[in-house]
Every structure is written in structure tokens, then in C-alpha cells.
């Protein structure tokens, strides 16, 4: 079969996955007695109905994009960084810690914010490298190591919020005492996102795109991911590159956590990672690990998240439908990939 045909077929199968996912969700909606057309319309209106909503999408888009950027590096290296949630959390903790240390000092707020973000990056990186070390030198599969460290990170987070960093007399789900406004990233107009975060995300995409498609280092990561032994024989140390991949992914995760703290919540909250790590894993799978698609697909997923808010308000349906839609999309596209390979023979 010539490549062009193969390409079309491949697209046909992907569209098939998309159609199946929509059919599946429609079926579920019919089961619950909802009108699927109403639901889909409300999802779209809910996501794009106003500039405010688009702004909300961008609030979600920033962390999702950054996380996916990082995950692409580990996926390229053949690693399943399921520990990303914990890395985001530790990033947020480090970042909060720095602001708490300098909050009542005379150090310039801008400097504190920068320090805080750097600390966040370092925190995420440490947690990720821990997973990497467990994998490369301890023989502990990164999935299990990552899961364990996720739990530890969240426990640490909750422990701090309800313990050492709790508000005066009030430990609550709403998190630690919000920082004074000087320690916030400047908001874009009255919206809840900062142009700084957006800029960082765009830079993040550019870096990852260039790293993975244009640099020698990215190519080496790819080689390790595609064939660890062969890469080693060609003179690329796999362990070093795996650790570096974890390091980079951890930096992005930590950055995400830090930006959630200084840019969105202005404090540490219990669910600071907000499930973005897991959602990012799904985005990465959906885009078949191609950096070029991060921005639009992360935007699409973010739009679904925001669009879902309309469902309870307008249709008295639970917003978790968005998650079902996201999940079934990834699932059916994965399944169709398998069907394609069976039909076409392994490409």
C-alpha cells in the first residue's frame, strides 16, 4: 500500500474512533433520558458562549498544556510518568513555601514570585527524578514508583494545609491563607488568567516542539524510547537520558504547580494538581505524542471541562459527562489504532 493511501486510511480510522466516542456518549445520554443534541449544544455554548468562558478555558489550558509538554518528553523516551500528579503537587508546595518565607520581608515581590516559580520547578524536578532513580537504579517500574509518590505528595500537601501552614485557627479545604496581592501574577484584565502564564505556556510549547523535533538531545531521547538497546549501542547512555527526561517533565510539572499557586489560586489548596496530570496523559495519548497538536487538543479538552459547567445549570445533568467524553475519545481512538494495525498489518 502506498503511503498516501495509508495516511488516508489512518485518518479514516481516527475519525472512526471519534465517531464511536460520540456515539457512545450519545447512547449514555439516551439511557439517562437526556436529549443528546441539547447536551452537545450546551457543551459548545458553555465553552465558547462568552469571552469570560473563553478566558476560563485559557485558565485550564495553561496547566494542561504545560503538563502535556512535559509528558511528551517522557513518552518520547518510552516512559509512563504517572507520577506527574505528585510532581505538580510538590511544585506547588515548594512554590508556596518560598512565598511564605519571603512574604513578610522586604524582598521585592517580583523577585519573590520568580524565586517561587523556580522553586516550584525544582520541586517538581526532584520528585520526578526520584521516580527516575527508582526506575533506573532501583528497578522499580515508573508506574508503581510514580503512584506511590503521588500519594505521598498529596499527603504532604494536605498535611501542610491542615497542619503547619494552616490559617490562624481555621484549617479548611479552601487552603492556606491567600498571599497579598503583590505576590500574584498580574491578571489579564479582570480575568482569572495571567498573560505571563499564557506566555510561559506558549514558550513551553515552542521549547518542547524544538526540543523534540529539532535538537540532537530530543533525537537521542527518541532513540532511547524507540529502542533502548540499540540506542545504547549507538553510544547514547539510556539511563542518563531517562533521568533527564524525568527531570524535564518534572520541571514542567513543577512549573505547572507553581503557576497554579501564583497565577490562579494565590495559595496552596488540597487538590492543587486538579487532575491535570492525568488529563495531560490522556491528551498526550490522544495526540500520539506529537508536539504540534498540544495546543489545539489541550484547548479542546479545556473547552470540554468548561463547557461541562453548563450541564447542571441548564440541563440538571452532572458535569462529569465531560470526563466521560474525554475518556471515551481516547479509548476509542486507541482501540481503532489497534483495529487499524490488525487490518493493515503492523505499519
Amino acid at each position, binding site marked *: 500500500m502506498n503511503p498516501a493511501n495509508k495516511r488516508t486510511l489512518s485518518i479514516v480510522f481516527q475519525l472512526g474512533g471519534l465517531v464511536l466516542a460520540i456515539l457512545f456518549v450519545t447512547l449514555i445520554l439516551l439511557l439517562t433520558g437526556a436529549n443528546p443534541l441539547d447536551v452537545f449544544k450546551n457543551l459548545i455554548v458553555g465553552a465558547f458562549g462568552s469571552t469570560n468562558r473563553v478566558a476560563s478555558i485559557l485558565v485550564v489550558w495553561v496547566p494542561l498544556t504545560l503538563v502535556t509538554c512535559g509528558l511528551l518528553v517522557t513518552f518520547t523516551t518510552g516512559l509512563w510518568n504517572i507520577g506527574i500528579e505528585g510532581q505538580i503537587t510538590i511544585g506547588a508546595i515548594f512554590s508556596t513555601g518560598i512565598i511564605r518565607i519571603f512574604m513578610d520581608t522586604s524582598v521585592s515581590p517580583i523577585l519573590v514570585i520568580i524565586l517561587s516559580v523556580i522553586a516550584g520547578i525544582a520541586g517538581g524536578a526532584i520528585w520526578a527524578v526520584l521516580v527516575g532513580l527508582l526506575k533506573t537504579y532501583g528497578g522499580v517500574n515508573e508506574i508503581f514508583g510514580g503512584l506511590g509518590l503521588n500519594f505521598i505528595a498529596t499527603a504532604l500537601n494536605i498535611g501542610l494545609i*491542615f497542619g503547619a501552614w494552616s490559617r490562624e*485557627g481555621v484549617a*479548611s*479545604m479552601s487552603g492556606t491563607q491567600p498571599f497579598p496581592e503583590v505576590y500574584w501574577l498580574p491578571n489579564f484584565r479582570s480575568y*482569572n488568567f495571567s498573560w505571563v502564564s499564557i506566555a510561559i505556556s506558549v514558550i513551553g510549547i515552542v521549547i518542547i516542539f524544538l526540543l523534540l523535533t529539532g535538537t540532537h538531545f530530543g533525537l537521542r531521547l527518541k532513540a532511547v524510547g524507540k529502542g533502548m538497546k540499540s540506542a545504547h549501542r549507538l553510544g547514547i547512555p539510556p539511563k542518563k537520558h531517562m533521568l533527564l527526561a524525568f527531570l524535564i517533565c518534572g520541571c514542567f510539572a513543577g512549573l505547572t504547580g507553581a503557576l497554579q499557586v501564583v497565577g490562579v489560586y494565590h495559595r496552596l489548596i488540597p487538590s492543587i494538581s*486538579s487532575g491535570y496530570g492525568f488529563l495531560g496523559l490522556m491528551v498526550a495519548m490522544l495526540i500520539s505524542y506529537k508536539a504540534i497538536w498540544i495546543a489545539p487538543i489541550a484547548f479542546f479538552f479545556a473547552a470540554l471541562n468548561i463547557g461541562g*459547567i453548563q450541564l447542571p445549570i441548564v440541563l440538571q445533568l452532572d458535569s462529569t459527562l465531560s470526563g466521560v467524553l474525554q475518556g471515551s475519545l481516547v479509548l476509542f481512538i486507541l482501540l481503532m489504532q489497534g483495529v487499524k494495525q490488525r487490518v493493515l498489518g503492523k505499519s
Partner: protein
Amino acid sequence: MKRKYILFFLSLLVIFSMVLTACQTEEPVVEETEEVVVEETEEVAEPEEFIFGILMVGPYNDKGWSQAHYEAGLYVEENVPGAKMIYLDSVNTADRPGTTAAQLADELVQQGAQLVIFNSDDMKDDAVEFTKNNPEIFVIHASGDSVWEEGMNYQPLANMVNTMGEMEYGKMIAGCDAALHTESGSIGYLGPLINDETRRLAASVYLGASYCWENYLGNDPADLSVRVTWIGFWFNIPGFTEDPTQVANEFIDSGVDVIISGIDTTEALVEARKASSEGTPVLAIPYDFNGACEEAPEVCLGVPYFNWGPAYVRHISSAIDGTWETTFEWLPPNWEDINDLDTTAVGFVMGSAMDEEAKVTLQQFIDELAGGLNLWTGPLNYQDGSTFLADGETATDIQIWYLPQLLEGMEGRSE
């Protein structure tokens, strides 16, 4: 390489075009909502429609805290002409990652809400932020203290009202109820996380229980044990909080025969029901919602509940007719009839597991409270033995609201 750059910028273009199309779709949507509005105003004709929105921290049908607010919203729709409720539930960062209550309040405003109710103490920061940013929108923050001038977190916000029922009375009644029924003299309090509010409620249970234990039953105070075990959250998260089921069972195992719940979920009732059916009689008192006993009436001693309806009706009406005033209110029950849903802020439904004699005694206690009995009267010590109230001294609202420790005589952590 250049080609790849182009691809990249193309993808950026895609985003921006999506944003642009988003802005374009704004118009037809506005039209639609207008249409809806037109239809409805035709129907209701006379009173102008007033949409209020509620943000609920949990599911609207949780048979607990959030449902109490939801029912109050329905009550407002019934009693305020033209009032229409819209709501968003599960408003917390775990269930709605990436959103903040302030942002979701905006969402309600976009759907036409002119007044927004924040129903959780956890939304305090967002409620304040939203109130500041939207001076034209009325805000009710249930359980907050932001506009309490004497309070520790005062912020002058003209468009905000804080309202809270004086659940301390409900908990005292619950404590008394428990004391009247315990055979072993051991009462367990299933606490959520530790803060001012949860401490003062736990302390209220203790005050009510020990008063009834001594004055009605004439027992030795030393024989009464009120033990608090905190799970660390409003509900169970495996791996992070204590498991309330295990806490309830541990109470039962250690001889507790009445469990009072302070958390959002009903493990206390469920475990009491299980233990009773399995031969160990255990009774329980749930929390928050007046229908909470339904889950296990045979072991339910009653439930102290919030009745937000009257307060909401009052504030929403005042918003409609322009008499809105910022205020902090901490509302006691209507002592005439604490279960009069049209007037009371806090109530107590007696459960079907109560015996008749106890019902009479409990009513006597309620009457005493109505008559001015103040259990926050010295001598009372903090748990660490330091003096809270000297003999004859009564506590101020501030002292109660920001109770820093459990009281002497209670078991369990203060922080």
C-alpha cells in the same frame, strides 16, 4: 526546519481562530437567552423575574449540607414572587478542577443571576473576591464571617450578607438527646477537620450532654465521656483521611452507644444501623438536613438541621425591593417553635428511635434554652486546663465563634 516552524505557527493560528470563533458565537447565545427571558416574562407577567444562583460545595442531593441549601432555594421560589433559582453543585476544586468558586459565580451571573449564594465556609476567599469584583451583584455567604465588623476577618463589602444559623443550640440539643439515651455513658463525636467552627460545635455537644446528664438524669459528670475523633476532612478520601466507617466502628467497639455526626456523610447512621441489626444497640444523630434520619430511622435519635429558607427569603426580598443592607447574622432558632420552617434558622427533628420519656425531657431542655439558659457560662476551662470562663462569666459571640480549643472534660484533639 522552516517548514516545521510554519506548522507550529499554524497550530497557534488554530488556537486563535478558535478563540475568535468563540467570541463570534457569543451573539447568537445572547439572543437565545433573551428569547427564553421573553417567554417567561410573558407567563409570569406581573412580578419581575429575579434570578438567584446558589453555589453548593457538595452534590445538591447529598441528603446533607448542600441539600439543605437546595431546599431553601426551592422555598424561596415558592415564597418570593418572581424568584427563580439556578444552581451549580459540587463546587470544589477536587470535583471541578481548574475552576474557582468566583469564576463559577460569574458563570451564574452570565446565566442571569442577580444574587449569588455561596454555601460554604471554604469559599470564603472566592466569595470576597467575587463580591469585590461585582459590586452590582448581591452576595449571600452562608457560614462566613467576612462582613462581621467585630470578627477577625472583617472586610467592608456593601453587597454581601453573611448568614449562619446558631447550630450551637442544635448541637446542644443533640448532645442532650445523646446523654438521655446513652447506657454506657460514652458518646462519640465524629468530627470532620479541626477548625473554629467544628471545635465550637463539638464543644456545644459536650455542653448539652453534660447539662442533661447531670441535671435531668442526676448522674455523676465523671461517668460521662464525650470523645471526639476527627477524620481530617468533611468526607472520606481513601489514603488521606481517616475512614469514618472505621471511626464509627471504633467508637462502637470501645463502648460508645450514641454517635453524633459532624461530617457531611452518614457513616454514623449506617454503622449504628448495622451494629443494631447485628445485636449491639447503637444510636446515632446525623447532621445538617432535616430529612437525614430517613436513611436509618430505627436508630436515629433526631437531627439538628439548618433551615436557610427564611433567611434567604428575607435577603432576596430585600434585594428585590431595594432594602438590601450588608449584615452579619448568626441566627438562633425560633424559640417559639424550633421546627417552624417558616421562621426558624436552626431546628431539631426528634427521631423515631427516641423513647417517649426522653422526648418529654428533651422538650424540657429545649424550653429551658428558650427561656434563656446559657450553657456558655463559667466556670469552664479549655482542654489544657487554662481558664476559658470564670465562674458566672458568660462567653461573648467572638469567644464562641473563634473557640481555640475543646473544653476540659472532652477527649480528643484540639488541633
